[in-house]
């Protein structure tokens, strides 16, 4: 209730202030303009093409990150020597904004979809690896010992004890990875590209078409928010 009122108030003042010339509408646009820009964009037709490009880059990069990140993380969590070897470079990468790698990735892979997939992959694989690794290490020793004393083989322990027990941590990594992947696609496309949602945002931003720009930004936000909410739901179900 209060949330609705707050948003309504915000939208109303955003609509009215430019009309009363309190702020320059060129800088801020107005909700009604954004709405009509939204109708324009949906009717225009390039939206579907750009969305499809960005979505496939996102999906490819994130799928690769899942396929590589979870097994690597679980393996690093299981074998301490391997972990000691990989941990320092991994932590250095984890602490660095991975998007700083963008220019060099473009140099290696060009301005097409490959560089975007790589940016998404790198951004999302690191939280997935780090959290999967932490998940295995958090598995309580008594659980493992109990399984061992009932004659479980190492493989049984891994599949029946360690894997389920570390699943919640893996899910946290997946959720963090998702939001980084969304940002990665957009920023990579903004940096250099020929198509995609980020490319549109860049074009509209340079032309200062605030109303159209906001439509795209709102779409990306809704997409990211939807995904993280879904991941959170899944996380709660897994944790139970």
């Amino acid at each position, binding site marked *: 209730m209060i949330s609705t009122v707050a948003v309504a108030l915000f939208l109303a003042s955003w609509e009215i202030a430019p009309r009363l010339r309190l702020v320059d509408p060129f800088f801020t646009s107005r909700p009604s303009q954004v709405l009509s820009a939204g109708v324009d964009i949906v009717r225009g037709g390039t939206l579907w093409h750009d969305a499809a490009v960005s979505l496939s880059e996102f999906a490819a990069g994130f799928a690769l990150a899942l396929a590589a990140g979870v097994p690597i993380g679980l393996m690093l969590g299981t074998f301490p020597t391997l972990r000691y*070897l990989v941990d320092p470079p991994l932590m250095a990468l984890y*602490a660095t904004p991975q998007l700083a*790698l963008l*220019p060099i990735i473009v140099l290696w892979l060009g301005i097409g979809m490959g560089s975007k997939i790589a940016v998404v992959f790198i951004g999302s694989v690191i939280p997935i690896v780090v959290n999967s690794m932490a998940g295995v290490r958090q598995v309580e020793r008594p659980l493992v010992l109990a399984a061992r004393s009932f004659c479980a083989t190492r493989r049984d322990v891994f599949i029946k004890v360690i894997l389920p027990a570390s699943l919640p941590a893996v899910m946290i990594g997946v959720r963090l990875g998702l939001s980084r992947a969304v940002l990665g696609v957009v920023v990579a496309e903004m940096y250099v590209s020929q198509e995609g949602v980020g490319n549109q*945002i860049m074009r509209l*931003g340079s032309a200062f078409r605030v109303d159209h720009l906001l439509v795209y930004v709102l779409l990306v936000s809704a997409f990211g928010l939807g995904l993280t909410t879904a991941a959170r739901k899944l996380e709660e179900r897994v944790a139970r």
Partner: protein
Amino acid sequence: MRPLKPVLLGVVSFAVILFSWEAAVRLGWLNPFFTSQPTAIAAALAREAGSGELARSAAVSLREFIAGFGAAIIVGLTLGVLAGWYRSVEYALDPFIWFVYSAPLIAFYPLFVLWLGLGTHTVIAISFLLSVTPITVNTATGIRTLSPTLLLAARSFGARPRDVLWKVALPASVPMVVAGLRLGVGRALTGVVVAELFVPSGGLGSSIAYNGGLLRTTDMLASLMVIVVLGVVCTQGLSAIESRFDSWRTGPGL
């Protein structure tokens, strides 16, 4: 855990990476145009350090980071305490926080350039907006999830709401607040670097973008190395502060 083995293996791991990188370039397996090589990067770093260029661009980025993150701490703590204390403030703030949290904020940089000019102010604004949300959310959660036993105990000793806030709720939420700061540090640093890629400000990210445009791989990687070091120092520094703030706590936090 034995402390020596991990450290030793960590050093070995960096040494192997640097050595095989250098060797692969010298043996002609890797094209130095694409990958550069550690010795060349070290030479570039030494040259930039000698000419003062390195200190200049690092100082610009550091200043932006401190301004953006500092403002985020002040605003985030204030909003977080208000939202944690008054339900109505939380409901009013919620939709905006979620939008700022999930929006690709860098998309707004042309607008920020219009409002604030091309340069450091825009970078600071983006860094601030990226890092303010986790601090606000975590502070509010920390105060909201105050244990009812503590609250009842304080009340029954005649504490007024203000006393409860300052003497019970705030100290009890330190772990959540620090967790928020930890998330915020990463996002503030990302904000600085990404904004600098797009907005020339003379900082490290701008140097990467500039050298990237000229295809000067070595200089690009040299700036990247400085960013890596900066990131590691920030994260480690925060862990040090965290363990200090938490040292008075005897039981498990929360």
